[in-house]
């Protein structure tokens, strides 16, 4: 299984994602510079966290026009798994692969802390090994993670079960107090209509080993390996 980690100028969680895939999970992994126009033979694409292009204009607004993003869109449109973490999520929003936008955190503070998220949906490639309602302890590190979308869009996300993660208390209760940034409906992560594109603000790649304070993030990477293995097994049977 090959993970492609896209590197933008200013990405700073690219090595964490690469490490999680390659050294923790033992999968193949490669970096793809944002000027590339191909993702090679990647099976999974990760848009990592960081401050692409210095967050100039808006978070993710410039990265969206990087040459590699045409290949990412094509990859996503083909139903293949794409994970956007933090700045990667912001890029997915800016380029329209996921709906909505990010506002400044409601208290205007940059939050760097462990939070808890509740897994709402297990039918995405990145959550197949989770249980619905499972609580993951993951770090956040962002100043603009206050998810916003028009009320109709939020209604549609709710109705179509596209809210994958919500900020919650350690025992899984979603409340305003557990919401670090003011995101509408406590949204921490969503998926695309096809469910193969997932974006979230917390950093699973930074929580894949006990030494990091939590290894709850590993299940997202294990999930996509499992999802792809299942898919190729089904294809083999089909053939």
């Amino acid at each position, binding site marked *: 299984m090959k993970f492609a980690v896209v590197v933008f100028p200013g990405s700073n969680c690219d090595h964490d994602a690469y490490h999680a895939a390659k050294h923790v999970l033992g999968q193949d992994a490669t970096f793809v510079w944002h000027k590339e126009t191909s993702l090679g033979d990647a099976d999974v694409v990760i848009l990592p966290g960081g401050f692409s292009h210095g967050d100039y204009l*808006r978070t993710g*607004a410039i990265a969206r026009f990087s040459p590699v993003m045409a290949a990412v869109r094509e990859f996503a449109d083909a139903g293949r798994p794409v994970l956007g973490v933090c700045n990667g999520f912001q890029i997915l929003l800016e380029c329209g692969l996921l709906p909505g*936008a990010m506002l400044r*955190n409601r208290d205007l503070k940059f939050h760097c802390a462990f939070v808890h998220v509740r897994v709402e949906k297990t039918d995405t490639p990145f959550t197949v090994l989770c249980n619905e309602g499972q609580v993951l302890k993951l770090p956040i590190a962002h100043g603009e993670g206050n998810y916003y979308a028009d009320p109709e869009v939020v209604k549609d996300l709710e109705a179509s079960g596209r809210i994958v993660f919500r900020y919650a208390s350690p025992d899984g209760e979603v409340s305003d107090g557990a919401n670090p940034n003011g995101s509408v409906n406590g949204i921490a992560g969503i998926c695309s209509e096809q469910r193969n594109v997932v974006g979230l603000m917390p950093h699973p790649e930074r929580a894949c080993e006990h030494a990091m304070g939590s290894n709850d993030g590993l299940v997202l990477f294990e999930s996509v390996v499992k999802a792809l293995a299942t898919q190729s097994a089904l294809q083999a049977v089909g053939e």
Partner: protein
Amino acid sequence: MKARVFVTLKPSVFDPQGHTIVEALQSLGYGDVSDVRQGKYFELDLKVPTPDAARSLAAEVADRVLANPVIESFRIELSEQGAQETRS
């Protein structure tokens, strides 16, 4: 031709920065300042011959790049002609 582009959060979108600024102003005694909305300002130099072309080009880049239509609206002023266009 020069165009000025003003980008602000849509009225329906909460502006945490503007809110903080108005609270600070009120605590300084400027009680008559009832609201503040923070935005961005861009000056564009455009190599186009007519005001219409300038307005159209500025609107295109504002819509595509300078503003995020999900949360922001923009207003364009052509500085030499004083022409104005608002879009959200």
